[in-house]
C-alpha cells in the first residue's frame, strides 16, 4: 500500500509485518516515534502475541533481547546516539553470542556537546562490534531493509543494525510503498534458531573462552561477516524478484560510467548527491556517485570494482575520527590500495548541519582543480575556529569551548537551518 507517511511510522509498520516476538526499548530522540508506534501496535494486539518491554535503559533493553533471542524469540529494538553507547557492552555480547536481533539506529551525533541532530558518529562508534550495518537512503529503503534485515540476521545468526538518518528520514513524510503481510511472510520464514535455551534439552550459552580458543571463536564471528557479503547480494536479488523494486545490496552506482570523479557516501545524503551529479553531468562534467549500502561488512571488492576506473573518489562522510580524519575514506583507501585513484575525505553534516547542493558544487570544483585540503571540512567556519583558538591562548582558565563558540555565532540555541 502506497502512503504518504512519516519515516518512523513506516518503519514501525514494517517491523510489525516482520512478526517480532519480543520488542524491548528505551526511548531516545530521534528514534522515539518508532518505538512509540510499536508499543501502540503491540498494546492493540496488532503484532500477534509480541511482548513489548519498556526497559530501564538501553543496556537493559538489549540485554533483555539477548535473553529473549537465546530463548528462541524474534527480537527487535531501536536506539540512537548516547543510547547506543550506553548499550555497548550488550552490543558486543549479542554479536559474540551469535544472536540475530535487529536494531534500528536513528543516526544522531554523540555529545559532548550534546546535540540531538543527525550524523553517523553513533553507529560508526560501534562499526567493529560484529553487527551487520545497513544504511538506508530513503524511507522506502528503510522499510525494505528492515524486512531484509530479519532474514539476513536469522540466516547468518548475526545481529543487524538498520541505520537511518535521524530527523532527515525518521521525521520526514514521503511516499512509501508498504508491503503486504503475505509478501513479507513469503520472504521471511519463521525464526529457526541455531542455538536454543530449552529446558528439555539443557545447554549453556556464553562460555568463558581462554587464549586456547578465543581467536578461533572471534575468527568465526568475522567469518559470519564475510558470509554476509554474499548473503546481502542474494537477498537484494530475491527482494527485487518478490517485491518488484530494488532495495538494499552492498553498493549502488549512479552514473559512474566514464566518471572521472565519483562521490562516495552512506545514507540519505545520496539523494542530494544525485541531484548534484545530474546537474554537473548536464554541464558536461564526468561525475558519478557510489552509495555504500552495507557498511559492515565493508564491501571491499565491490567498492574497488566500482571505483577503480575513476581518477578521484571523494568520500563525503558524516563522522569524524578525532585525531585522524575520515573513517569511511580509510575503508575506501584500503579497498583501492595499489590503484592510482586519489581518495579525498570530506567531513560534512556533523551535528545536523545541512549538506547543501551549493556547498557540494563548490567543494567538487575545488577538488577538480586539485585545491581541496585533506581532510576537507565542508562549510566549517574557520573565522570562528581562529578566534576561539586565539582566545584560548590568552589565558589558562579560558573556560568551556562550546559556550564561547555559541556566543561567537550569536546563538543561545541551535541555528534553525
Amino acid at each position: 500500500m502506497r502512503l504518504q507517511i512519516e519515516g518512523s511510522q513506516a518503519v514501525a509498520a514494517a517491523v510489525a509485518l516482520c512478526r517480532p516476538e519480543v520488542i524491548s526499548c528505551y526511548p531516545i530522540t530521534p528514534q522515539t516515534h518508532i518505538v512509540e508506534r510499536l508499543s501502540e501496535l503491540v498494546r492493540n494486539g496488532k503484532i500477534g502475541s509480541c511482548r513489548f518491554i519498556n526497559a530501564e535503559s538501553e543496556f537493559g533493553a538489549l540485554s533483555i533481547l539477548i535473553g529473549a533471542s537465546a530463548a528462541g524469540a524474534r527480537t527487535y529494538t531501536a536506539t540512537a546516539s548516547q543510547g547506543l553507547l550506553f548499550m555497548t557492552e550488550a552490543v558486543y555480547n549479542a554479536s559474540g553470542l551469535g544472536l540475530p536481533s535487529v536494531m534500528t539506529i536513528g543516526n544522531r551525533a554523540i555529545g559532548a556537546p550534546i546535540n540531538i541532530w543527525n550524523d553517523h558518529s553513533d553507529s560508526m562508534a560501534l562499526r567493529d562490534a560484529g553487527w551487520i550495518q545497513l544504511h538506508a537512503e530513503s524511507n522506502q529503503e528503510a522499510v525494505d531493509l528492515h524486512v531484509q534485515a530479519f532474514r539476513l540476521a536469522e540466516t547468518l545468526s548475526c545481529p543487524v543494525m538498520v541505520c537511518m538518518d535521524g530527523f532527515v528520514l525518521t521525521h520526514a513524510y514521503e511516499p512509501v510503498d508498504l508491503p503486504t503481510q503475505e509478501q513479507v511472510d513469503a520472504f521471511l520464514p519463521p525464526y529457526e534458531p541455531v542455538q536454543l535455551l530449552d529446558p528439555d534439552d539443557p545447554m549453556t550459552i556464553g562460555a568463558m573462552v581462554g587464549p586456547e580458543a578465543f581467536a578461533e571463536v572471534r575468527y568465526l564471528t568475522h567469518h559470519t561477516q564475510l558470509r554476509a557479503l554474499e548473503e546481502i547480494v542474494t537477498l537484494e536479488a530475491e527482494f527485487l524478484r518478490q517485491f518488484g523494486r530494488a532495495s538494499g545490496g552492498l553498493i549502488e552506482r549512479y552514473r559512474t560510467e566514464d566518471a572521472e570523479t565519483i562521490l562516495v557516501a552512506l545514507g540519505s545524503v545520496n539523494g542530494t548527491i544525485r541531484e548534484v551529479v545530474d546537474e554537473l553531468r548536464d554541464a558536461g562534467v564526468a561525475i558519478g556517485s557510489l552509495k555504500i549500502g552495507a557498511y559492515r561488512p565493508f564491501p571491499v571488492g565491490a567498492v574497488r570494482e566500482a571505483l577503480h576506473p575513476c581518477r578521484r573518489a571523494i568520500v563525503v562522510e558524516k563522522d569524524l575520527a578525532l585525531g585522524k580524519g575520515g573513517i569511511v575514506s580509510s575503508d575506501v583507501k584500503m579497498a583501492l590500495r595499489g590503484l592510482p585513484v586519489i581518495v579525498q575525505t570530506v567531513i560534512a553534516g556533523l551535528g545536523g548541519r545541512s549538506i547543501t547542493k551549493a556547498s557540494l558544487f563548490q567543494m567538487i570544483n575545488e577538488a577538480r582543480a586539485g585545491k581541496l585540503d585533506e581532510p576537507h571540512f565542508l562549510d566549517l567556519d574557520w573565522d570562528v575556529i581562529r578566534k576561539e583558538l586565539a582566545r584560548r591562548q590568552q589565558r589558562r582558565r579560558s573556560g568551556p569551548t562550546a559556550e564561547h563558540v555559541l556566543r561567537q555565532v550569536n546563538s543561545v540555541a541551535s541555528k534553525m537551518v
Partner: protein
Amino acid sequence: MVTAAELVAVAAFLDGKYAQAFPSFGSERMGAPVMAFCRISERAIRLREPVMKPDALIIQDPTLLHQVDLFTGLSPSGYLLLNTSQEPHRLGLDDLMARLPAAHIRAVPATEIAFKQTGRPIPNAALIGGLAALTGWVTLESVRKAISQKFPGRVGAANAAAAQAVYEAVRSSRTASERERTHAVAD
C-alpha cells in the same frame, strides 16, 4: 507547524503528486520558533537539503516577522500567506510587498477562523486551505481529505471546515485586498 507541512504533503500525494515534508529539527519545546518544509513535484524527490528558496511561505505567527529573517530566498514570484487579522501593508513589509506580485500576498485571520470552527486557537490545518486558494498547488478536496485522515472524527471535520473557511476567505479577499493596497499606495 510540522503538522501543516505534513498536511500539505499528504494533500499533494492525494492529488497524485510527489511530496516531501520535514521539520527544521529545532528545539523540542512549545513556543520555540519552528520551521517546517515541504516540496511538491511531478517527479520523485531526492533532495534532502532544507528549502532555502521557497516558492511559498506561510507565516503562522506574525510576531516573528521582525524577529527572524524569514524572507531571505523567497522567490520574486513567490507566495506569502500571513496568519493575521491585520492588512499586510500595516505589518511593515513594504519592501517585501514591492518585490512580490500583489496577487501573491494574502493575510487571513486563520487563528480566529480555526477557533470559531474547532474551539481551539490552532491555525495549522486551516492555513493549508489558504495555501490551496492562494497557489492552486493542492486542491481543497485533498486538503480536506488529508485533514480528516490525520484527525479522524469530529476534530478532523471541524478542522476541514476551518480549512474551507480560510480557503474562501483568501479567495474573496483577493479583490478587496488589492483595492486597499492600490489605495494605500495612492495615498
